[in-house]
């Protein structure tokens, strides 16, 4: 039975944002705020940096565009020059469409799989799932979780702190395996 951390419930989006600000100001770094939908302004309240996902998508998009243009150039100029109604072999304006489509296709893969990478999903065994009540978070509940890995973590101190900032139904999560 290893411990994972502490979760505390808050009433609504406003109190979750205020709680996040207090947890951030207290100096915690390994914490998260769980909600049924994304809350506007929560990134600042938690002190999160801007997502790096954009760079991944940009790089993938560029790769797709270069691959698309390169593939067409290679096919018609080098590998299989085909004279069709006298059109030039290197007909670069005609390559625009497939270059664009492959850029979009690669960017979309970058967006979805990059998101999964940054979010560390799929992951089916997270300790928050050992809490019965936590599952309401996908419907109508708002939770703060503070992990045991946090340098400032001290179980009784964290519980008192979460109580002070208005958390209810405080639970210590234990990994049952």
């Amino acid at each position: 039975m290893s411990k994972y951390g502490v979760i505390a419930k808050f009433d609504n989006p406003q109190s979750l944002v205020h709680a996040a600000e207090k947890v951030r100001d207290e100096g915690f770094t390994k914490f998260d705020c769980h909600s049924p939908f994304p809350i506007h302004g929560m990134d600042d309240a938690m002190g999160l940096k801007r997502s790096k996902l954009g760079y991944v998508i940009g790089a993938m998009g560029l790769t797709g565009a270069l691959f698309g243009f390169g593939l067409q150039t290679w096919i018609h100029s080098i590998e299989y020059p085909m004279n069709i109604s006298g059109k030039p072999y290197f007909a670069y304006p005609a390559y625009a469409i497939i270059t664009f489509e492959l850029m979009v296709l690669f960017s979309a893969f970058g967006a979805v799989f990059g998101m999964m990478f940054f979010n560390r999903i799929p992951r089916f065994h997270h300790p928050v799932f050992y809490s019965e009540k936590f599952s309401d978070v996908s419907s109508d509940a708002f939770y703060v979780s503070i992990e045991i890995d946090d340098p400032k973590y001290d179980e009784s101190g964290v519980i008192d702190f979460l109580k002070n900032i208005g958390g209810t139904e405080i639970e210590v999560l234990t990994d049952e395996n």
Partner: protein
Amino acid sequence: MSIKSKALIRAEKLLPGNQDFTSITDDIAGVPEQKKTPIQWWLLFGLSLSLLSIFVGSVGFLIWEGTGIWGINNPVFWGWAIINFVWWVGIGHAGTLISAILHLFRQNWRNAINRFAETMTLFAVICALVFPGIHVGRIWVAYWFLPLPNQMGMWPNMRSPLIWDFFAVFTYFTVSLLFWYTGLIPDLATLRDRAKGLKKKVYGFFALGWRGGNRQWQHYELAYLVLAGISTPLVLSVHSVVSSDFATSVIPGWHTTIFPPYFVAGAIYSGFGMVMTLSIIARKVYNLGHIITVEHLDKMAQIMLLTGCMVGYAYSMEFFVAWYSGNPYESFAFVNRALGPYWWGYWAMIFCNVVVPQFFWFEKYRRHIPFLFITSILVNIGMWFERFVIVVITLHRDFMPGAWAMYNPTMWDVAIYLGTFGLFFTGFLLFLRFLPMVSIAEAKLVLPESDPHHGDSHE
């Protein structure tokens, strides 16, 4: 009452009644969780399955016998298959418009219908992809479309609009699928948390272990925004590329620069018609009138009015340019559309696409549900005729009168077209039964309580 205050009152009514986060979850997730499937669902599903069996049988016979079973013949080699392809792709476009473009414009009313519309896109594009696939005749070499190294040392011609089209529609399908699935992840987590036993395992598998933490939402929201951002030019490109299948040819009536925007407007018009048809049925069968409200139908009717007028403008501009160009072949092609042997197809198109949407200038008609239901079906009949006009009427009389002929579809053309409805509705009904038809997470964002500043004083 000023227009502005009226609009504000409307915005608040998007989710009428005393709804909160819990009731939204219960209402939407309650549909796939139903113990007893409604009898209407079984009736519709039975009908869809029988149409699907017609599809399987007629496509099977087509593959066995060849495209000779269709009515295509000299000079009309692009018959119903291409009409249906363009028609189904066009229907799909409204889904992407609703989910991507309206998301970028922060039109929150879309949150009630976007899941719906995206699913419609997926199945409509599958139906569309069937047609070029079977139209090649030798379906077992359809993979020659792909730039795959092969022992013949042969490559596709990347300068051809038909290959552009293949890449565009294939990319469109893949990106739509990714967008749809990304939107589903939080909702699958909701279903996972409410389900038990095997269902919990299946929903849980696809929910990927979503925990709703803001560290996840942060990347998720960016991914969703970027997907919306890249889907927007993509959807505009797809129908533009479809139109270049026609516009890059030298056939009078096809060789025009107005085709790309005109095809895109028509696609959105027909797609909204289909979203309207489907949502009127679903809100009735599942009693979701408080989530998909008359307000949403009204807004969709307004977009249909706009795009219908754009299509009407394109029809008249084509005629003007045909006359103004001074090209006798071009002029003849258009006179032949309106007054030739297929005049009924042209005027059916004008009636459904130009005359019918004019009723939407009036609020009374935009909020009259039986009227909306009938017009939404007329819209799609009209858009089918538009493609009939473009494909068949243009081809049947081109330059040389000696090469003119009439086009006669066979029962197999009809059977395959009807069959794709089976394919479409079977998929759509399975979606309605097992997945949340409205985005649970996004529907909550419409509630004022979801704003973290709700209740703060603004004095």
